[in-house]
């Protein structure tokens, strides 16, 4: 009988080979007039340069958004984006929100009951009534 290869779709498992950060772009929008943007302005001047320097794999952009609340928008590799409005927050609180966006994958928030998620087939095999010790009736 000829030997044929089994067709298998390659599945990427981030972390097994190389690790790729899921967040690819972060936009920081500020406003010079709005009082709610005071913390954001301070964050951009003081904490943002160090945050940007420690993440060379993420694209950052800072742009004014006049007459609006300050907002951080993060875009992810799976195409989704997450926005967090940081109105009336202090610079260190905004840094925590930026770290939250960096740690997240772009997946929608969902409740997960089981801790382990796997695509490998079972190591010990699926139970069969015809193999093993049998059943005494």
């Amino acid at each position, binding site marked *: 009988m000829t030997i044929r290869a089994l067709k298998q779709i390659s599945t990427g*498992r*981030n*972390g097994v080979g190389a690790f790729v*950060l899921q967040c690819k772009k972060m936009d920081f929008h500020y406003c010079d007039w709005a009082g709610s943007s005071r913390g954001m302005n301070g964050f951009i001047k003081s904490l943002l340069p160090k945050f940007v320097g420690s993440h060379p794999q993420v694209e950052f952009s800072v742009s004014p958004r006049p007459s609006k609340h300050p907002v951080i928008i993060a875009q992810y590799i799976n195409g989704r984006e997450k926005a967090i409005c940081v109105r009336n927050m202090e610079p260190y609180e905004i840094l925590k929100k930026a770290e939250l966006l960096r740690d*997240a*994958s772009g997946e929608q928030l969902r409740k997960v009951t089981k801790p382990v998620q*796997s695509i*490998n087939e079972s*190591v010990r095999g699926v139970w069969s009534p015809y193999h093993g010790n049998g059943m005494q009736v």
Partner: protein
Amino acid sequence: MSRALLRSVLELRAPVTRLLPLSIRPTTTTAAAAPAAASVRFFNQTAQHIEPTTQPDPTIVANNASPPDSVRTLLPILAAQPGHYITLLIHGRPYLVTQGDSIRLPFKMPGVEPGDVLRLNRASVLGSRDFTLKGAPHVDERLYECRAVVTGTESEPLRVKIKKKRRCRRKKTVKSKHRYTMLRVSELRIREEAVHES
């Protein structure tokens, strides 16, 4: 039965030889301890200094001792099988994983960033299709290498709990949105050379 008496009776059943410093003398002895063998017994000795003369349990591996015969003979066969699983214990909680699985821990691990590699050294079971290495209570960490990468921190959806009592109009709202650290098991390897090292 008092604890001292119980200990002496147990020691009578399995007499123990110990290396004792000559300067310390026993303060009290009970009647059960007196007719024992030539060794002197104390009531405040810790268990780890006792060398058992009974048959040693084959699944227990002492720190500096060589692995038992079943481990030495069967570990290479376990390692040669195609698939392996390991039951990791993270803060005492078991997670049965194979290589490439993702684990969602029930807490947010402090001080880690995405991309950090954790070396996991606490496991209770290491197995393959036909063989299982059971630790008592843990598998010797020199026998395997298991690494996990922190992939990020996920959050659950916002949960709102409304607390209200009957015949009282006041309602209290409690919001929860817990964060969970996600790991990916990047490496699970059985170290056969550990059997030959010791």
